[in-house]
């Protein structure tokens, strides 16, 4: 009962909900846009990796993609955020604010993981599908985007859902670069009231609810795509 009292005072009476909503908004925004950037970027990289031509240009692009993926997967996201916020963005003279920076970095990070997810998706589509596309006269890229990728995406929807969940939870490191995310907002409430129990319970509950919502959405999307199930 005391916990509820504290919750009501700290979150409602003292206006803690405003900070909470701000944190929630940023967390969802960064994860959703990051996922979209990652999806597009990952799709492009996966297609590049599937190019069978062996020209110099193709090899150079593949090498660049390889380095990018290795770096993004090989360093912690917190390091990438710090590096971006304190080194790369200032160095390039880009000043877009902490939140857009975070979105970009989360997108780039997710792109690396997503490229592997999409690659496994592309590999899961039967070779005969791309052969049929090519035999009809479609170019490599048209075959990829019209025939192979739609099936590949369908096969990896659960894995993309997983990536989304990971992203949502990883945003909790954002407080290091001065972005008010869900975790940061709860820390602020806890620090200002010196009451730690309730905010962190609320925090855990909110992440859990977010993840459950995502799980539900993924299931819905899967169902919708299952129409053409073989």
């Amino acid at each position: 009962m005391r916990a509820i009292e504290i919750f009501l005072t700290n979150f409602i009476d003292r206006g803690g909900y405003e900070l909470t909503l701000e944190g929630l908004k940023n967390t969802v925004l960064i994860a959703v846009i990051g996922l979209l950037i990652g999806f597009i970027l990952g799709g492009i990289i996966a297609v590049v990796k599937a190019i069978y031509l062996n020209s110099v240009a193709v090899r150079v692009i593949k090498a660049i993609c390889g380095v990018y993926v290795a770096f993004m997967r090989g360093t912690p996201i917190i390091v990438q955020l710090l590096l971006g916020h304190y080194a790369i963005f200032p160095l390039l003279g880009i000043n877009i604010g902490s939140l857009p920076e975070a979105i970009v970095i989360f997108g780039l990070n997710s792109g690396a993981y997503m490229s592997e997810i999409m690659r496994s998706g592309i590999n899961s589509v039967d070779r005969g599908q791309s052969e049929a596309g090519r035999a009809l006269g479609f170019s490599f890229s048209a075959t990829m985007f019209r025939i192979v990728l739609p099936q590949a995406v369908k096969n990896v929807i659960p894995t993309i859902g997983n990536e989304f969940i990971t992203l949502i939870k990883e945003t909790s490191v954002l407080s290091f670069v001065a972005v008010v995310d869900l975790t940061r907002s709860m820390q602020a409430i806890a620090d200002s009231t010196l009451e730690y129990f309730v905010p962190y319970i609320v925090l855990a509950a909110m992440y859990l609810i977010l993840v459950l919502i995502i799980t539900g959405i993924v299931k819905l999307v899967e169902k919708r795509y299952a129409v053409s199930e073989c």
Partner: protein
Amino acid sequence: MFENLLEIRELTKSFGNNDVLKGVNLEVRRGDVIAVIGASGCGKSTLLRCINMLEKPDGGEIKLDGEVVFKSSLHALKQKQNQTDKKSPEYSALKEECKLIGKEEAAGEKKRLKLLNSYREKTGMVFQQFNLFPHLTVMQNITLAPMKLKKTPKELAESQAIELLNKVGLAEKSGAYPSTLSGGQKQRIAIVRALAMQPEIMLFDEPTSALDPEMVSEVVNVMIDLARSMTMIVVTHELRFAKNAANRAVFMDNGRICEENSPKLLFNAPQSPRLIDFLSKVL
């Protein structure tokens, strides 16, 4: 215009050390219906896949409708180079020649690569495993290529598709997804999909081999019907089609065309011992 629609000369193809095609020669006239038979592993499927460049041949020449689609003598030259003594003067001469021809052919190939997609539009391919697009309906499967590649307006593409579907007796399936169709129905749709691009020649790669026995005839009937108006090369174990619809039959063995004749003579009066042996096993 050109008497020969398709000309294949000295076509070679190997996968690693395995020489699958060892110099295939075949001339296909407009209207020909050619049944290609042979034991598995003899190279008949590879030949078909080389004709529409799903597999890139190593050497030889392919011409469709008078246009060179593939031409290379580099591979043969390199093989010759590898066989000559490295110290002999002939070796270095061959090496130089290889370099020169390699450059020339690379330039020619680049040009032809650009035409490859339009060339493939002229060759319809039907696969053993159907390879319908499972994420599209029957109608979308058929109209995708004409709409996107030939820029056929949707209404026209769809009415053409319905016409073709009527011919194979599947007009009522136009809204269905491939997963709801039987094997025989899938293959008939796959034939329609290839026909919708109005190809000059149709290539069939063992179209009935993946079908349940009771569905073979519905597909063969469609093919026999089609054979009256289309140039076709059919790799098949289906001797009924070979006997009834083909005007030429080709027996392949060990990467070469071993015997060629009218189907009647090929089946009833085989000449080579390999064909006699093969027929005794399958008939």
